[in-house]
């Protein structure tokens, strides 16, 4: 695949027009999941397991079925046993659809507190909930296993007797009863550590956290009289929902239309089905549309959190600060079914440094918690927390400046990654120099109990398939339809790329998100990929539009198309410089020259630009309470080319705030029996606007040659370094090293007291 020649000057990309969906969103007119209603619609509710691990001996639904106002009751017996169970998810690997189906409704065993067991559709949600509670389930209780080290221990309770490891190139036998293993290596770590002047080895633990999207999972389904199914849902990927529904219900994909509504946050957690197949089958049985709304407790108990981890790492360096060897062992919770974020988590652990000798082991560990789902740079925050705090420790031991240390070891373009291949264009050195030269880094921290911390972070991102349709209207406006749900302003960032390519104003582009019958296939809005990958589809469709319009101009002027010069929205006759059409003028002549023009492009780009960032934080710690106050926060990030700098800034700030929550507050509390105890946002404590200062975003631009305007994804990497940066600042402030997340006031106070006494 060839690199693009990126224009030196861009007219639209890099500006900050108003997003077209903004007014409707701030005035409450935009349609989110719960705003959707159909005539004669029923309401569904789920009966969930009160046990973390149990065998289902029997289910009696008779009382629920007889309850007045109930129209349908379903259990796993109403769903097909899947025959074709593994689907290819591109760069994301493969998905076992039987696991996906069993996660939606338990078949023989329940694997976590909150696992769905049955569902009811009734005249209203209250009747449905009351009837669901009349369903009698006889369980045989089994011992739960709630953390990775217990699950990997000898004689641990086994979750799946038929579990086959999903490990990378593992032999077909199980690595451990509940775990798959992957390994990566380069060089010879034994020799590397022998060459080191200083070696440190540390252990870390992090807790399970949730993506914390404010809108919960909401779906409405209608089984049509002709067997066609329509689903309205809040999702990161309408095609993913359609495909997964088709596979678990054994329906043709074309028989299902999924219409994406606006999405109130996803962060990786809304990429797959939960209540969707239940709503579809309830609709089939009742003959009426069924709406299902998960409440907050259900969302926390039963939808994808991100893994808790156990990490053990070892770093070796020379006295001049050159890293010579690294070992990283990371055990990541997979939850109830295999396939957690271990691969990206361990693959990014060291990738930003050029270390010649590396050995990495990763374990994907089954535990009695919900199936882990991606969460913004999945797996990278815990591994970054471990390595970046160890780097800080090395800097202090060796009395080296933390930026200079990182500059000495920074991965640069062409260096070999631990994955083996050379690193594409990357602006890590530029990021670190920007930190060094920034007023924040040069300022005096001031005051007692205050400290400053730095962390450096990396994320791969992805390409994957995207589609885009463009249609030119006779007034010169252009309709843009993509298959990518808009989570972060991508309607406007796609419209801007179309406007740039077509040579018109972004206000003349009207972007929309299509359903599964109105636009070509697109992978989910995940992996920081939409502005990059769908942007390339838009660019390609725009090139097609320009070519078609050039043909029309040539037809009008009766010259060869080769004689049409296209220049910034103008079509010029090279043989007669007096002849020129603006885009709008030519659009007005389409009807009489062959009819309207439209173009569709499907792109699956491979030139992914890696994401690199550094975070600098100042904080104060109260020695009497252990409470941390963030005083100043600056995030430096390479956007390749910031299509809409305000939205890049928003992504950086949003990801940073989520990282601060992961660092300081957020964690799942389970009791010994495996019951989740903090099932509200009062007890699952996410940061609010009162907890964080203004986060200054410093955007750098090292163009990605894999995109026509140099774009890199920006959404994921901001969540990677905050925990480590805060831990390093805490050490600077109070002289204590935290090796566990979250760093709650209680833990900090314990550590302060243990140092004092």
């Amino acid at each position: 695949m060839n690199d693009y020649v990126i224009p030196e000057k861009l007219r639209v990309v890099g500006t900050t027009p108003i997003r077209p969906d903004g007014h409707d969103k701030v005035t409450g007119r935009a349609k989110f999941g719960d705003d959707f209603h159909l005539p004669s619609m029923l309401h569904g509710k789920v009966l969930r397991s009160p046990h973390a691990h149990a065998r289902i001996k029997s289910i009696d639904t008779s009382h629920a079925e007889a309850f007045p106002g109930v129209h349908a009751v379903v259990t796993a017996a109403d769903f097909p046993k899947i025959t074709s169970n593994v689907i290819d998810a591109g760069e994301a690997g493969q998905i076992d659809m039987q696991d996906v189906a069993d996660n939606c409704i338990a078949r023989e065993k329940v694997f976590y507190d909150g696992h769905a067991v049955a569902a009811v559709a009734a005249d209203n949600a209250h009747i449905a909930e009351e009837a669901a509670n009349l369903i009698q389930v006889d369980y045989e209780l089994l011992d739960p296993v709630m953390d990775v080290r217990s699950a990997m221990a000898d004689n641990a309770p086994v979750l799946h007797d038929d579990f086959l490891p999903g490990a990378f190139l593992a032999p077909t036998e199980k690595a451990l009863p509940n775990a798959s293993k992957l390994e990566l290596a380069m060089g010879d770590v034994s020799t590397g550590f022998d060459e080191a002047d200083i070696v440190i080895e540390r252990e870390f633990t992090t807790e399970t956290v949730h993506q914390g999207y404010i809108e919960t999972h909401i779906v409405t389904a209608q089984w049509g009289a002709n067997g066609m199914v329509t689903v309205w849902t809040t999702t990161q990927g309408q095609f993913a929902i359609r495909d997964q529904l088709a596979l678990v219900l054994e329906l043709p994909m074309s028989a299902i239309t999924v219409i994406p509504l606006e999405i109130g946050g996803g962060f990786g957690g809304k990429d797959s089905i939960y209540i969707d197949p239940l709503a579809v089958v309830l609709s089939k049985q009742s003959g009426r549309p069924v709406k299902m709304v998960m409440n907050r407790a259900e969302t926390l108990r039963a939808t994808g959190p991100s893994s808790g981890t156990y990490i053990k790492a070892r770093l070796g360096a020379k006295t001049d600060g050159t890293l010579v060897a690294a070992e990283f062992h990371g055990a990541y919770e997979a939850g109830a079914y295999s396939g957690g974020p271990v691969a990206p988590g361990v693959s990014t652990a060291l990738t930003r440094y050029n270390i010649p000798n590396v050995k990495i082991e990763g374990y994907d560990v089954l535990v009695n918690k919900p199936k882990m789902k991606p969460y913004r740079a999945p797996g990278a925050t815990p591994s970054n927390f471990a390595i970046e705090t160890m780097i800080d420790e090395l800097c202090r031991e060796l009395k080296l400046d933390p930026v200079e240390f990182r500059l000495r070891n920074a991965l640069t373009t062409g260096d070999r990654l631990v994955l083996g291949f050379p690193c594409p264009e990357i602006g890590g050195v530029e990021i670190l120099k920007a930190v060094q030269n920034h007023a924040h880094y040069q300022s005096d921290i001031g005051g007692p109990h205050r400290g400053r911390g730095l962390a450096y972070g990396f994320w791969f991102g992805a390409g994957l398939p995207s589609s885009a349709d463009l249609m030119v209207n006779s007034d010169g406006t252009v309709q843009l339809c993509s298959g990518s749900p808009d989570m972060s302003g991508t309607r406007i960032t796609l419209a801007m790329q179309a406007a740039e390519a077509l040579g018109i104003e972004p206000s003349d582009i009207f972007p929309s998100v299509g359903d599964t019958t109105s636009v070509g296939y697109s992978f989910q809005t995940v992996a920081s990929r939409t502005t990059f990958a769908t942007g390339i589809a838009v660019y390609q469709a725009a090139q097609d539009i320009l070519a078609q319009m050039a043909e029309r101009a040539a037809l009008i002027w009766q010259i060869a198309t080769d004689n049409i010069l296209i220049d910034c929205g103008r079509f010029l006759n090279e043989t007669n410089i007096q002849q020129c059409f603006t885009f709008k003028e030519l659009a007005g002549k389409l009807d009489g020259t062959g009819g309207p023009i439209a173009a569709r492009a499907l792109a699956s780009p491979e030139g992914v630009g890696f994401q690199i960032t550094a975070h600098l934080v100042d904080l104060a710690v109260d020695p009497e309470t252990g409470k941390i106050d963030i005083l100043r926060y600056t995030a430096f990030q390479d956007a390749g080319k910031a299509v809409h700098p305000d939205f890049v800034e928003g992504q950086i700030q949003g990801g940073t705030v989520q990282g601060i929550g992961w660092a300081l507050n957020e964690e799942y509390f389970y009791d010994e029996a495996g019951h989740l105890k903090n099932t509200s946002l009062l007890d699952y404590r996410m940061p609010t606007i009162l907890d964080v200062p203004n986060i200054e975003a410093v955007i750098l631009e090292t163009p990605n040659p894999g995109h026509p305007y140099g774009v890199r994804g920006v959404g994921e990497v901001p969540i990677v370094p905050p925990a480590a940066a805060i831990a390093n600042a805490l050490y600077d402030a109070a002289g204590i090293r935290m090796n566990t997340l979250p760093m709650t006031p209680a833990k900090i106070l314990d550590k302060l007291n243990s140092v004092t006494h």
Partner: protein
Amino acid sequence: MRELTGGTEKVAVDGDNVREAIRALESLYPNLAGLLIQNDQLGKGIAVAVDGRIVRRGLYEPLRSDSEIHFIPALGAG
């Protein structure tokens, strides 16, 4: 993977695409091909990078005579 190649990090083989290259590996390392190709597609959890890019065409990605192939974990994202 090095365990399956007896510690060898780099192997040169002929092939017009990734599938052919894997088949060429089969004669050198009989256990390797069965793990890289399962059910006529790349094995579970595996992605392939050709000349520095993680490629979408998997087994069918064309190769040049000097192409570099790396088998890596499928990464996924949020």
